[in-house]
């Protein structure tokens, strides 16, 4: 039986990962990141890997709500901040261990998702986006008002550490990051993901097909809040601090920047964005003078030429979609790996060659 299972994993590995350059590359990068902590033990690198994993979950959770369901959330930091503060305060005042405070923080973030989702889902399109922008800023005001509990500008500090060593923390973060991102990806790939997609494309049509769009949008708010909340609680325990910067407009914008830079509505794009941009920005700390300028200019230039984001741009170069069965293929193939359709004709259509209508004939 074990042999059977191994066989299946091997076949999946060969048939679903190795045939596609994009997935192979992702696997290689993933492996490299997993091995890196064992090789260096450098606190600085461990820190970058840990935070990258946390923020990958944060960005992916934004993508789930805003990319897939199309509910552009400009205040995603709300979930992160609520969870961070909840975890921190539960830990500090009630002395609960991180194993409890992080889930509780995530639950608080889900509650926050419900609390803003229920009133805000009456709003459509840009109204919703701009209303969501407001909540973290309002909450920040509240944090300042209850200074004696929240620490005001200084935040809640002195909370317990996640694990004994930085290395352990790093691996916990990595495992959590990888599994949560895969989970989000699986959600978007499931029937639920299909419904989300339908709501984004045409909410009225979705409703007309018997989908309770409001309930599903609320579900999306909660799911997104859950994942962002886990990231937030984790972050608080890692930094041993929950501060008002976790409710900042810039943090919300960060999630959006990472995701769109990588490629919106793909999940892997959100992760790619974080994996590229976050370490880059940490390295740039060596040049504080031009750090943010470099960041902003990079984004403007990259998006100017890859408006769909880096990951889709890259995949378009190394893979092509079969015009008939929509399976993806490595760019080196002449025939589709599933249905054997000639791929060259499909390419000519997308290049817009005039006079070719390009219906693939066997």
């Amino acid at each position, binding site marked *: 039986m074990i042999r059977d299972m191994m066989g299946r994993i091997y076949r999946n590995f060969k048939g679903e990962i190795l045939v596609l350059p994009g997935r192979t590359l992702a696997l290689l990068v993933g492996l490299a990141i997993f091995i890196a902590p064992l090789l260096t033990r450098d606190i600085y690198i461990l820190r970058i890997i840990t935070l990258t994993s946390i923020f990958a979950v944060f960005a992916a959770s934004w993508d789930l709500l805003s990319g897939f369901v199309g509910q552009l959330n400009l205040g995603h930091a709300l979930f992160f901040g609520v969870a961070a503060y909840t975890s921190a305060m539960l830990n500090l005042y009630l002395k609960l261990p991180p194993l409890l405070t992080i889930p509780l923080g995530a639950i608080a973030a889900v509650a926050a998702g419900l609390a803003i989702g229920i009133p805000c889902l009456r709003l459509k399109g840009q109204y919703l986006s701009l209303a969501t922008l407001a909540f973290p800023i309002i909450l920040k005001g509240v944090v300042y008002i209850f200074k004696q509990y929240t620490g005001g500008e200084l935040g809640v500090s002195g909370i317990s550490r996640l694990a004994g060593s930085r290395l352990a923390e790093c691996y916990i973060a990595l495992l959590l990051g990888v599994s949560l991102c895969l989970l989000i990806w699986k959600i978007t790939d499931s029937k639920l993901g299909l419904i989300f997609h339908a709501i984004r494309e045409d909410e009225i049509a979705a409703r007309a097909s018997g989908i309770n769009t409001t309930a599903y949008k609320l579900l999306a708010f909660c799911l997104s809040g859950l994942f962002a909340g886990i990231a937030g609680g984790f972050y608080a325990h890692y930094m041993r601090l929950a501060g008002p910067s976790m409710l900042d407009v810039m943090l919300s914008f960060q999630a959006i920047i990472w995701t769109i830079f990588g490629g919106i509505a793909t999940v892997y794009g959100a992760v790619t964005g974080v994996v590229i941009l976050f370490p880059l920005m940490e390295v740039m700390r060596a040049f504080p003078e031009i750090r943010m300028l470099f960041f902003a200019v990079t984004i403007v230039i990259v998006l100017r030429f890859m408006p769909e984001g880096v990951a889709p741009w890259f995949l378009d170069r190394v893979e092509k979609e079969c015009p008939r069965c929509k399976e993806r293929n490595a760019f080196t193939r002449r025939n589709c790996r599933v249905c054997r359709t000639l791929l060259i004709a499909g390419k000519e259509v997308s290049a*817009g060659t005039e006079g070719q209508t390009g*219906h693939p004939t066997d």
Partner: protein
Amino acid sequence: MLEVKELTVCYDTAMLLNEVSMEVHRGELVSLIGPNGAGKTTLMRTISGLVLWEKQMKRGTRAGNITITGEVYFQGRRIDQLPPHQIARMGLVLCPERRRPFSELTVEENLGAGAYLVRHRRRYQDTLELVYRTFPVLKKRSRQISATLSGGEQQMLAIGRALMTRPLLLCIDEPSTGLSPLIKQELFARIKEINESGITMLLVEQDVNLTLAMSTRSYILSHSKIVARGDRNELLADETIRRSYLGL
């Protein structure tokens, strides 16, 4: 006046027009008939330049993967590479499907927007007079926000707005959708009147009987292709056409 030569339009891999050729001569009222999804609206949008515009706007996205081949001539000049506003400037104006008034603007502002190209105050006044004479109800409603008009009034507004551009060739896409039979007849009488006042017309319609009766010539478009052409008697004479496309 208008000549379409082997026009083919593909959206991604779907072919919406397949080597369509047609022509409209000065003074004619030519109608384009066909079932839903035959490509009538696409043809109108291609002629008026909207498809090209859409292609340029959505360049780089999947929705922008549009190919247009073939040629369109208006008054001897090739127009299939021109943007819509220049085509309008030449006198070929499309009154689009579903009326689409500028809904937050008043009736008079809508007409004013139509007269964007008419810079002379006098000419503007004359045209406005003319439109009000053709559709007196618009004058009564001139200060009303156009979203509050009835369907028939909105259609009249849309045609009036297109007339304000002082077109040489007026294309109207499905003016009778959703109108009561009475209003439809009234509207068609007006359209006929406008044609008789000297404006050439290309009309897309669903109502075969009324349309055939008033147009000089007709084209039948089905499955992206022109399947028949001719005047009323010619089309009605052919048994297969009558049964398959005209439902008579």
